[in-house]
């Protein structure tokens, strides 16, 4: 704060200043969401633990090398990172927002002067914080236990960054959008889990993508997860592996394009379908 010779503002003008500014409101909301998340032990264990458990299983099953000097872990870590990011954004929001809507948490917020976007900002801060923590944990475990090679150039880290940001943004927006499909608190996971599971199977998370049937690859190419995995393969696999991709290269331009498109689709769906109250609330 700067010092000033201005006379003290009259009390009436000073009163609104007691409310935190827009940015501070969003940060408070994010802190509240993170606090709630960290205190519910099940979500912490399952959200943070799932990708780590999966990579451990994969590392135990596939001990070979996918190519000389490149272990299977190096390939599957990309799927696990992408899955982890999708879990914290798409699944987390698609399951929790219906619960909060059903409990009336959203309705209560709507009854306050909180600007609508602050609530969304809080969710985004939550997703980003857990996403970063979970990915870091996954990489640390993989480096320590399975000899994972981290990206060795700034360009690769940069790709890692933008693929993650675009992917998480698309998945967050789609998670918020799909939350409106659930009619009750309990149906959230029934709506979201099959979608996530199918996408994981067809997008090259559990299998080498190019080993999947051609039609399956075509279907997967319509959704963001496949492109997140592909973008991350450009980060963790040698450049020569690009030749094995369906398009003959890692196609980073197309990765950016499809993920950005899904951000737009997700945003439009959010803006047109989001509900603060349950259907029976009218």
């Amino acid at each position, binding site marked *: 704060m700067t010092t000033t010779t201005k006379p003290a503002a009259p009390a009436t003008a000073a009163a609104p200043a007691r409310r935190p500014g827009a940015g501070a409101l969003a940060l408070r909301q994010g802190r509240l969401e993170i606090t709630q998340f960290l205190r519910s032990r099940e979500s912490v264990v399952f959200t943070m633990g799932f990708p780590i458990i999966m990579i451990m299983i994969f590392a135990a099953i596939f001990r070979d090398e996918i190519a000389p000097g490149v272990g299977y872990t190096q390939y599957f870590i990309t799927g696990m990172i992408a899955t982890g990011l999708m879990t914290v954004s798409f699944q987390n929001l698609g399951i929790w927002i219906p619960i909060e809507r059903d409990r009336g948490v959203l309705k*209560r917020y709507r009854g306050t002067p909180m600007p609508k976007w602050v609530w969304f900002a809080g969710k985004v801060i939550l997703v980003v914080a857990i996403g970063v923590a979970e990915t870091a944990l996954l990489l640390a475990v993989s480096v320590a236990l399975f000899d994972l090679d981290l990206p060795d150039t700034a360009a690769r880290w940069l790709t890692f960054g933008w693929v993650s940001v675009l992917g998480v943004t698309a998945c967050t927006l789609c998670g918020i959008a799909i939350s409106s499909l659930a009619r009750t608190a309990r149906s959230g996971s029934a709506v979201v889990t099959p979608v996530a599971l199918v996408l994981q199977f067809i997008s090259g998370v559990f299998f080498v993508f190019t080993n999947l049937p051609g039609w399956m690859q075509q279907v997967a190419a319509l959704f963001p997860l496949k492109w997140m995995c592909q973008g991350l393969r450009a980060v963790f696999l040698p450049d020569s592996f690009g030749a094995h991709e369906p398009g003959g290269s890692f196609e980073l331009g197309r990765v950016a394009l499809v993920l950005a498109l899904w951000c737009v689709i997700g945003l439009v769906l959010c803006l047109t379908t989001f509900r603060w109250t349950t259907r029976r609330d009218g």
Partner: protein
Amino acid sequence: MDDQLAISVRGLRKAYGDTVAVAGVDLDVHRGEVFALLGPNGAGKTTTVEILEGYRQRDAGEVRVLGVDPAHPDPRHRSRVGIVLQGTGEFDELTVGEVVRHFAGFYPDADDPDKVIERVGLTGKARARTHTLSGGQKRRLDVALGIIGRPELLFLDEPTTGFDPEARREFWELIRDLAAAGTTIVLTTHYLDEAEALADRVGVIAAGRLVEVAPPDRLGNRQEALATVSWRTPDGTPGTAQSATPTALVVELATRFGGEVPGLTVTRPTLEDVYLTMIGRR
């Protein structure tokens, strides 16, 4: 618009498909008044109140809440109105103090969170997670969130449903305190004694219409209603008579019995009697 009116409603209508929930309600609530909306379930109480709160859109009618059309509430309007909904929004993993402080941040001129927690009698629970609170304590937390922004107008939707008698008495004291401080209060209830204990005026709503609006002791011309005098005749059968002049009748009975009248009672219709007549249940 009369500045003395906190709420003004003319010709309010709302239907859900073919079901008419509110069929033409006219209503004025004065500033500083405690107004109770009384009616059976499904009579249109909650729909009416949620239109006033800005949660539901009306089909027709003029509505002003603190001079503003609640169908389009801006944050400034939200900060002047406190809402205590029927369902409790749960923040299971947060403490009472955390929730109240967080909501205080939404308001331009919020009250001191510790003071508000004390006012609703939760000081001893300020550090407790909200899921450890009893039903009555959760309702107090709801009220704390409703009044943290120092509202000019407070809506309470069936605030004491599920309370034990002692908790209700304590809750009534809290409402009386708020009313004494000048807050306009609109509460819905289906407890007649609650309306009688708290309200300056009661509006009885049945089948989507406001049947009558009057102070509780004058509802249905209760104070002018005939008194019922009952006694036991010498042959043991009960005697009963309706009378506009019950004192004269009692004197006459006393003369007839030569002193004490066996089993004598003089009653006027209770609020429950007139209420049940009004909503067509008697």
